[in-house]
């Protein structure tokens, strides 16, 4: 209880004084996570819509694999990306290991199946509702996918926010591929892990509260901007 209250006080103090280290770590967390979620959404949303609209042999298996990939162990993802990006790996020449780019790649791999799977489930129901209309209007497959993405924008926003939630709280993979290097790849989650390891619980808790507050604030801001829950009819 003592640690919790000290953590809260630490978080409040660092936020109020705009502690440079906290600001830097927070901005890096946001930069890595937002970039990863944007890329994962650009891949996952159309993929989910495409799977909802198209019928092909093996579709069920593809969906089952996609759903299974939602539970990808981040540490394994981190390990595989580490091997791929390490000097002896096939992409070692790019020199991306222990950079924010490597962390973004890891988060994209972790988050894309989650966004695609949630998007697919939401758009599958929407497709059932819109199927006859869109076929009747003689739309192309591309138009159907685009229409579903627009019509299902609320549900897809939720998919993106779920992806953001998973990415911002991720620690295993980015610790491995980012290395938790001070002033380079340290983000909120890896900083929390580091401070916990050092026994500095109040600072770790303070960073944790900042992380939770950040996640809630971003969700609220997006919901507010997109007018979610104000009307179910748009």
């Amino acid at each position, binding site marked *: 209880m003592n640690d919790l209250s000290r953590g809260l006080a630490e978080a409040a103090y660092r936020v109020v004084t705009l502690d440079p280290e906290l600001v830097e770590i927070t901005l890096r967390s946001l930069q890595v996570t937002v970039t990863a979620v944007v890329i994962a959404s650009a891949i996952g949303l159309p993929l989910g819509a495409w799977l909802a609209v198209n019928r092909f042999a093996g579709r069920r298996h593809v969906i089952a694999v996609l759903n299974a990939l939602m539970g990808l162990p981040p540490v394994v993802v981190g390990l595989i990306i580490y091997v791929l990006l390490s000097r002896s790996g096939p992409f070692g020449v790019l020199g991306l290991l222990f950079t924010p780019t490597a962390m973004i790649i890891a988060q994209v791999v972790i988050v894309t199946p989650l966004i695609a799977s949630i998007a697919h489930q939401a758009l599958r129901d929407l497709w059932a*509702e*819109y199927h*006859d*209309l869109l*076929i*009747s*209007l*003689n*739309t*192309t497959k591309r*138009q159907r996918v685009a*229409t579903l993405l627009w*019509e299902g*924008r609320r549900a897809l926003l939720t998919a993106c926010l779920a992806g953001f939630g998973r990415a911002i709280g991720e620690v295993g993979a980015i610790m491995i591929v980012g290395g938790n290097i001070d002033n380079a790849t340290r983000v909120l989650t890896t900083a929390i892990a580091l401070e916990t390891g050092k026994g500095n619980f109040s600072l770790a808790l303070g960073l944790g509260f900042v992380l939770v507050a950040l996640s809630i604030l971003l969700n609220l801001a997006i919901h507010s901007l997109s007018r979610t829950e104000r*009307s*179910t*009819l*748009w």
Partner: protein
Amino acid sequence: MVASIFPLQIKGVEVKQRGVRLIGPVDLELGAEGLTIVLGPNGSGKTSLLRLMHGLIRPVRGSLKWAVPEAEVRTQQAYVFQTPTMMRRSVTECIAYALIVTGVSRAQARNAAREYATRVGLAHALDRPAGVLSGGEKQKLALARALIRKPQILFLDEPCANLDGRATREIETILGEVRSTSTRIVMATHDLGQARRLAQDVLFMVNGCVHEKSSAHDFFSNPQTAEAKAFLGGQIVE
């Protein structure tokens, strides 16, 4: 000048779904003019026949041929569903969508949408979300969305089901106006009164088969089959 898609020739067509026969065998020919009412009790195959003609379902047997290739036919048809799908957009955007997907610019499509919305009596609701419209207004929107593409044939699947008398009259007035243009109308209903008011000719269906095809006058004054007589007499036909 767009080529006429008529006549439609249906020969020995059967439609099955998961092994269950929905309609057939059906033989009929549809000309370029008039308002045909597809009449029959619930489950007689009216909707399936309309969906077959519109290309939403495929026959397992027989042939269905229009005068022009199928790709051209699809652009010349429109369908108003019994429960119209309301997109999560404004009334104007919902109607304009039907034109935008054909390649018409958004500005042009919106202008046309406002014109058609006004024509069907939705001028007061142009910017409202389509989802908040009443049942009758939703059907009017669906009609405007269908008519904006100036189809040669318009399929209507029980457009007045669940509507009150006033909304039904408004829809029928719009259909009367559509009829005065060159648009062919094929409409399914089980409402005898509506069939008497609108029909020029009647397709009477029972159990997936067309039992009678005749002019409205002949059908109502002198039905040929026992099922039609029973149906017109208010008896339950299965």
